[in-house]
């Protein structure tokens, strides 16, 4: 099955076509891209077109779409989800909503894995995984609350992600190991978004929405 996958939950944009013969054609950002201003709208579709071209398949030969639904940057998630839905809908192919934390965890390569995505305002989105299995569901917390929120099952876990890099010193002070700063494991890789379609059932495209994990800031006036 030719799968198109992408993730826009962090400032970086990651795209991959996993061709039916198992070969992957990834457009992955450098880890440094995680700490530059996001440009998903400018980056996503050109990367999608590039991955499809490099895989030497046509748009018409895509058989499934997988998208990282967060948690992560709200605007980025909406660009990713809107794009994925439109492609799946227009082609009449299945859409798999994949947790961006699960995809990040899949790249960490250790178990347990503690994927941490920057939630802004001094907070982190996190979860604990052992392989594909979610041990602690996604949460949002301050860095110094991570050990408590991640729980005992996170003991000995390796943390990675833009949030892990940003709050490395706080995390390490709390006894959490983090991957080296320039490591590629901090990037949510679209290849892992593609691979996770095995464990995430497809949903009807219009029903797929980001996992914001946080309410919008809005105060009723009356």
């Amino acid at each position, binding site marked *: 099955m030719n799968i198109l996958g992408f993730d826009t939950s962090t400032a970086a944009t990651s795209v991959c076509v996993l061709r039916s013969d198992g070969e992957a054609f990834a457009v992955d950002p450098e880890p440094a891209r995680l700490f530059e201003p996001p*440009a998903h*709208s*400018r*980056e*996503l*579709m*050109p990367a*999608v*077109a590039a991955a499809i071209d490099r895989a030497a398949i046509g*748009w018409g030969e895509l058989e499934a779409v997988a998208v990282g639904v967060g948690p992560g940057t*709200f*605007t980025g998630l*909406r*660009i990713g*989800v*809107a*794009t*994925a*839905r*439109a*492609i799946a*809908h*227009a*082609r009449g192919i299945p859409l798999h909503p994949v947790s961006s934390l699960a995809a990040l965890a899949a790249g960490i390569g250790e178990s347990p894995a503690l994927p941490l995505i920057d939630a802004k305002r001094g907070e982190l989105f996190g979860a604990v995984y052992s392989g594909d299995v979610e041990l602690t569901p996604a949460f949002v917390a301050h860095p110094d609350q991570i050990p408590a929120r991640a729980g005992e099952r996170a003991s000995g876990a390796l943390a990675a992600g833009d949030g892990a890099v940003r709050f490395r010193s706080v995390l390490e002070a709390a006894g959490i190991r983090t991957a080296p700063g320039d490591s590629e494991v901090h990037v949510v890789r679209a290849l892992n978004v593609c691979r996770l379609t095995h464990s995430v059932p497809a949903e009807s*495209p*219009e029903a797929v*929405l*980001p996992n*914001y994990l946080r309410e*919008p*800031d*809005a*105060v*009723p*006036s*009356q």
Partner: protein
Amino acid sequence: MILAVETSCDDTCAAVVTDDGEIRSNVIASQGLLHARYGGVVPEIASRRHLELIDAVIDDALERAGTGMDAIDRVAVTRGPGLIGALLVGVSVAKALAAVRRLPLVPVDHLHGHVVASTLGDKPIEPPFLCLVASGGHTFVASVEDAGSYEVLGQTLDDAAGEAFDKGARLLGLPYPGGPEMDRLAKQGDAAAFDFPRSLPGDGLDFSFSGLKTALLYRVRDLGEEEAGRRRADLAASYQRAIVDSLLTRARQAIEREGARRFAIGGGVAANSELRERITATCAELCVELWVPDRSLCTDNAAMIAAASRFTPALDYPEYLSLDASARVA
């Protein structure tokens, strides 16, 4: 046939329009009530709602047009100005829909859409013409020499006319969005009961509405809560009269200064009944032909985006893949 998408503020819109301006469908999913309890549009809530609605709204537009994506040969989308997070939902969907079918994509200036809304339908306006656009976000008079562009002759220096309606309505305790409520209440009041300022700044054609709401605030305070409540219809009528007077004065000055023969109105405030009545009388008096679009073409809608796309250069695949939305200028 054109499929157009518009998500610049709080209405999720899609439309199907033919190349010669026949509207096959014009679907508007309004979020008004969703934002009512906040007294204004909350950008993050609007963006989330757009994403929830957009696919269904596009399907609905295609279905009501009695067609499908196969018949569409061009996609148009509002690129700006507007709320960036809201715009990006429409831009992302439009780019993907166009790319999958390798259709051309037309990025449209939202304000251009308002200006050329009257080029749609059976009796399209033809340049040269002048246009008054008044909405919750914008108020300006523009000159259109050819339909592909417009020149702003004057604009508001502070609040937009629609903003003045909404803020005034709030001071009178009317529910959001206040424009239509104020219009309804004003019909029962005496427009001469209170004297509100008509601010016409400078020698040109600019507008200013921020002083008006302050005047209303003071008047309501001076009257006291009970009396202000009792005379709410008079306050609404007088306040609305002041807004419409300012708009009409500038419209008349623009027509006379430019020697215009054709005039159009657009934007959400163009749905106001007093403005519609009085601009009709003014244009009749000046022997100027007037275009007043249907209300569904005045408030934000995608048909007007399709209208503007007919006069805007299209981008071919893959040029538009890196297209970004723009909060300010399109």
